[in-house]
């Protein structure tokens, strides 16, 4: 069995039930590598999962404590847990694009606004793949999916001047990064820095779904070709000449806040209640 799996995962779940050729395992492995580099033990981190491919495949794989919330609620659960757990205990969430950028976006924005100390890894496979491949909020423009048979007709969060990370930044997120599953060390390093960041951090990682998205939209059925498609679009060189309408991925750390930004949610609330308890009340002006 894989060394990291032996070290960090429950044996029962170490062999993933994901489809053959799925890129989710690569994302999972990058997270575990970052955890290993940080020297985090299973008791130091509580792992939350959303729903969909990412949620269901990764839930309860972690040897330590696990939790999950359906359809975008995991950020709200994690915010509460942040207050209940000791500050040094890490909280990491693995969620999908539909969960984070669609159904649970409001919860995610509020989580970023509060600057709760937790790390969200959004494993993005371009749509709702676990339910059969319907389009979602990062599905590329014009992509044919189960629910967009004539091409994706809905504006997404990734193209035409919109970037979901801009919105999260505006909401108050302190650390934002984007990678694709075909990247190696730089992605691991980004995840590591996200976990180290004190406050809300989010890493958006795009990975291929061969079963639904790739077989329908670009018409690719070979996993290797799907990974190549993604690799070609990850930080493409100017000579690659992708048309402006094509979705490509500029990866790396997108935003990192300085120390003068919003205080961490748990820290701020503890200080606030301490002040009130000591009889000082708070300044209501």
């Amino acid at each position, binding site marked *: 069995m894989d060394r990291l799996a032996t070290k960090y995962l429950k044996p029962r779940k170490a062999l993933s039930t994901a489809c053959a050729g799925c890129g989710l395992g690569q994302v999972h492995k990058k997270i575990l590598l970052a955890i290993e580099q940080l020297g985090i033990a299973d008791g130091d981190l509580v792992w939350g999962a959303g729903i969909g491919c990412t949620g269901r495949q990764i839930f309860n794989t972690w040897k330590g*404590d696990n939790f*999950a919330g359906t359809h975008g609620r995991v950020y709200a659960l994690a915010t509460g847990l942040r207050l209940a757990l000791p500050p040094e205990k890490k909280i990491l969430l693995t969620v999908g694009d539909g969960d984070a950028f669609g159904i649970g976006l409001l919860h995610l924005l509020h989580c970023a606004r509060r600057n709760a100390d937790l790390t969200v890894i959004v494993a993005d496979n371009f749509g709702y793949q676990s339910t059969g491949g319907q389009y979602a909020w990062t599905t590329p423009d014009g992509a044919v999916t189960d629910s967009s048979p004539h091409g994706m007709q809905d504006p997404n969060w990734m193209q035409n001047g919109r970037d979901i990370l801009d919105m999260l930044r505006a909401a108050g997120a302190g650390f934002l990064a984007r990678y694709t599953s075909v990247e190696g060390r730089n992605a691991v390093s980004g995840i590591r820095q996200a976990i180290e960041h004190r406050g809300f951090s989010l890493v958006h990682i795009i990975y291929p779904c061969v079963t639904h998205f790739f077989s329908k939209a670009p018409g690719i059925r070979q996993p290797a070709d799907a990974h190549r498609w993604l690799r070609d679009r990850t930080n493409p060189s100017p000579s690659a000449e992708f048309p402006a309408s094509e979705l490509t991925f500029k990866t790396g750390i997108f935003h990192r806040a300085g120390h003068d930004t919003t205080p961490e949610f748990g820290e701020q609330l503890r200080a606030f209640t301490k002040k009130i308890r000591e009889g000082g009340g708070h300044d209501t002006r």
Partner: protein
Amino acid sequence: MPITLLADQIVIDGWETLPLPETSADADALGLRVAERKAHPGPDFYPTTADLDVSPVVLGRNTGAACSDWTPTEEGFDTEEVEAQHKHAWRLIYKVCNNRHLLPRAEEIEVADADVIFVAYGSPSRVVKSAVREARRQGLKAGALRLRTLWPFPDEIFHRQRPVKWLSVELNYDGQLVREIQRAGGGGAHFLGRCGELPGVAELVEAARSLSAGRPLTVSDPFAKEAW
């Protein structure tokens, strides 16, 4: 164990003073005590017994806990097997039903000699309590049941009452609770509903007076289903 709290808008939007203890003396005065939460030690974290108060999923203790709203297997892993859904649902149903005596059931108010018993849950139950007081003052034999757990329905409390006329007081039209009262109370259930406002003490007293005298409840027009 999933618990559903049914609340109405008054409960949801209402504000009340909630005394919170600041010292252990305050806590003693309020009759509160701190109980350390027990947790299953793991690694076989999902107890398949019906033991109470041993939660398999207290997060943060590194017991390998798995807390989700998905159906778990005996080992705690989530499963989508149909048989597992049935098994899990029946386990929870029997766990609740077999321990129903531990659940707060209902508050009984002046029911011993009552001819009319109001039944209410949530906000209307306070008006109902005042209505019982006022009806008694006017010489009517009225009582009330304030239900605290709706499922499992407190049938045993209904069974122990002598034959009475039941009046279900609800915040809706046409009744949602009244049919359970008909079933558990052996018929003779009447209904008085209000939407967007609480019933008044006076109209409840009048309703009790009508039912005691064997008269139908008054409605605003013949097609209204606000009382029957």
